[in-house]
């Protein structure tokens, strides 16, 4: 192996007595301090700072308006514009879910229902948010476009039970989603 000999850099007198560097350092830190107090730190603008440093101060200020289109928040079920459940409880999302956060209890749609041809709907649909990793695989795999990742990121609770989203809560988060889905088509 080749030996590389490194020469320490020769310091001139000013560098040796070190005080110049100290003062430079003080100027640097104080510039940062002053700029930070005035809310003019580098990046304060783009990071939507609170006016002190580059930090956004959370409960009062939210990142919500700055969330990107592709942001993946809490997964939720959606209904169509007429309030019908899109989910047919095929359980594909339950099977694909890497951390096994989704638990579905399927049920049949009774034969006297006008949409009996759809056959199934979920009786229970639980997503354990302490397990969910927001990967979005459920959304990708869903053939009925019934589960979507919304932009909700504040999933909190005081008990483990609070962290499990049941069907009602999931529809609350999800809301409605407009668009044609084949299963509602009478002719098909």
């Amino acid at each position: 192996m080749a030996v590389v000999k490194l020469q320490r850099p020769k310091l001139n007198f000013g560098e040796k007595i070190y005080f110049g560097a100290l003062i430079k350092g003080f100027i640097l830190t104080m510039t940062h301090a002053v700029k930070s107090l005035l809310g003019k730190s580098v990046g304060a603008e783009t990071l939507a700072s609170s006016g002190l440093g580059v930090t956004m101060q959370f409960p009062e200020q939210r990142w919500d308006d700055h969330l990107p289109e592709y942001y993946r928040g809490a997964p939720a079920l959606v209904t169509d514009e007429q309030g019908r459940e899109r989910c047919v409880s095929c359980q594909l999302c339950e099977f694909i879910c890497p951390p096994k956060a989704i638990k579905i209890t399927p049920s049949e749609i009774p034969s006297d229902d006008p949409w009996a041809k759809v056959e199934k709907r979920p009786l229970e649909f639980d997503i354990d948010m302490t397990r969910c990793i927001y990967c979005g695989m459920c959304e990708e795999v869903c053939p009925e476009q019934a589960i979507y990742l919304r932009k909700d990121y504040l999933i909190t609770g005081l008990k483990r039970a609070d962290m499990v989203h049941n069907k009602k809560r999931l529809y609350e988060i999800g809301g409605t989603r407009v668009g044609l889905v084949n299963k509602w088509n009478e002719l098909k």
Partner: protein
Amino acid sequence: MDILQIAIILVKIVTLTFLVVLPLVPLSVYFERRFSAIIQDRVGPNRVGIPFSLLGFKKDFHLFGLVQPIADGLKLFLKEDFTPAHVRKAFYWMAPALTVVPALITVCVVPFGSPISIFGHTEKLVIADLDIGPLFVFSVASLSVYGITLAGWSSNSKFPFIGGVRSTAQMISYEIALGLSIVPVLMYYGDLNLGTIVKQQADHGWLLLPLWGHDATHTLSSKLLFWFPAAIAFLIFTISIFAETNRMPFDLPECETELVGGYHTEYSSMKFAMFFMGEYAAMVIGSALIITLFLGGWSIGFGLDAVVEKLHIGDFYYGGFIHMGCFMTKLLAFILFFILVRWTVPRFRYDQLMKLGWVVFFEAALINVFLAALIVAAPQLQAAIIGIGSVLLVILTAAVIWVAKVSEEQPKILRA
């Protein structure tokens, strides 16, 4: 000594130590966190305040997070006080107290303000008006290294031990420079009583700002001439205080990157908090000493002190309290400077630290003593003697620099 005198002394001890200096410790912790945050473009602790909403009121007062240190202290109280099985118990328990107590004892010689007077009775705003002020501070403050060393040794684990040893070595190398650097100041004032030193600065200008109070014995030119040795002394003294209090450029006994947590690795809960408190108390006392010796102590300056001292309501001369406010302002400013240095200057390597202490500061302080002596004695000497003295001083300086240069070890070339 009658009851009244004892009562006055007790009141002074309790107020000045526990109501003035001790609250400065959490305050400086708060400043440390806020100021470092601002330097680093962050916000820092700004939430913890008085939780009025818990008591049924509408709003909480967050007070810029000023209550944060109390929350920190409470947290440390509630932590488990764990004593590892392998420690040497007696010393392990003693060490935290040994770091805090010396720092708080030194408070007693610091003059906080000019004397206040009530009903014709004058009282100095200093706990013990000792005639050996700085010497007392040095002798007691150096005891705090025992706490650190004992903590390192009694923890019976390698990183704390290295921290303790480093602290000892650092103390020895900087104590000499610390002591020597203020010799010029003491020569100039001819007094070791800190109260008298501050009084002289109030009358004739601060040591580093001698712009007022000129008279026959304190001419402007003589004061300006002494400014140079005073500035050198200030520099050496300040940097040595940094080393003495284990503050950032010299915090080798507890550097996290090398020694886990340094000498307090094995400590938890309030025992750890005591080390923390001791460090900050030492910082407060160090800045108080620097201010007292070089920056006029409680003096407001510009000839205003005489006016302030005469302020009174009836028999009550309250100027001392204004001076005390001035002293606290200066103290806080200096603590902020300490913090600024901590977040600006990177830590020294150990050999650089030793070299700085023994090769640079020790010699510089020694030469500074001679320089100051020459300047102080100059008015009484004949021109010829001053000339000889200055030539000798130049020769001495050159010799010291030459020795330092020659003795500097060249890095060995490992392979040609």
